[in-house]
């Protein structure tokens, strides 16, 4: 089950990589694979059990898969230290402002949609 689902995911990723090399160099292969799988799922109208199992398993271990790239930090300590305050400031400020803005915007839009539905 798990292997069958994994085979599908790998197939879609490889298909994505082939398409990237052929005609879409600006999009990462796995992203093309994601879009292809999404279109396929919408077309099928359901997720088959093996694909769902493999996807759930992989996504549960996503944090583990992200550890090796994160360790890459040790190779860039100098680059970060050189720009430390600029980077820290940009990360924190932009996060807080955009978090508040996105939440506020969505809240407004939901309220507006609810009002319109009441009027209609």
């Amino acid at each position, binding site marked *: 089950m798990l292997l069958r689902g994994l085979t599908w995911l790998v197939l879609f990723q490889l298909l994505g990589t082939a398409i990237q090399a052929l005609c879409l160099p600006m999009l990462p292969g796995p992203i093309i694979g994601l879009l292809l799988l999404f279109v396929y799922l919408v077309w099928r109208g359901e997720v088959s059990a093996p694909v769902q199992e493999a996807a759930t398993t992989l996504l549960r271990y996503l944090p583990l898969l992200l*550890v090796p790239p994160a360790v890459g930090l040790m190779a860039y300590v100098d680059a970060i230290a050189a720009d430390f305050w600029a980077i820290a400031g940009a990360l924190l400020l*932009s996060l807080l402002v955009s978090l508040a803005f996105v939440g506020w915007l969505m809240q407004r839009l939901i309220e507006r949609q609810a009002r319109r539905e009441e009027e209609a």
Partner: protein
Amino acid sequence: MSFDWQGAWQALVQHPLFAFGITLGAYQLAVAAYEKTRWVFLQPVLVSMLLVIGVLLLCGVDYAAYRDGARILTVFLGPATVALAVPLFLNLKRIRLLFWPVVATLLVGGLFTTLLGIGLAWLFGTERLMLMTLAPKSVTSPIAMLVSEQIGGVAGLAAVFVLITGILGAVFGPALLRRCGVRHPAALGIALGLTSHAVGTSRALQEGEECGAFAALGMSLMGVCTAILLPLSVAMVV
């Protein structure tokens, strides 16, 4: 007779499974620590990263050697990205109910988030390599790493920025949003998922099921849109 300690040590450290082994071990320690304390600062990726770096420094292994060994793990980031299509598809019904609010928030909010990050970093005087690495900071790590590499940033560093952003969002997000008068669970969820990706999504799940579902939606939509639009717009501008 004397044992060749030096040789045995070298054989251990240079074994192809060494990097895999310490990563697995560090990750399980980190997950156990997080589950015991439930403290938001103890994000498993952050803690495992620090543990692995510590072990590598102690053993005198450099990052290039570790990266080669850990390729068994990183190669699965591709299929994991493809797997994000599944939660996206499963949330399709909820998207339809709030279709226009979600689309408008995604386009306006997502653009705002990305531009604000780049703009502030540029204003503070960071160089081009750093700008391109910071640009996808609000996107889930596999996508952020691919995208930053595509537009000329550093993949490993992008993952670090993504992680810091996510932890900040999970720590400050819910309190900040409530103070701004955001009450609807869908709005809370979208804000957390769109700006703080997976870490924000797991925080949103603690707020409730609807909030968590919209966070997953915000995360996957923001990821896909960034993956498609950011490399395209960078290619057009530069």
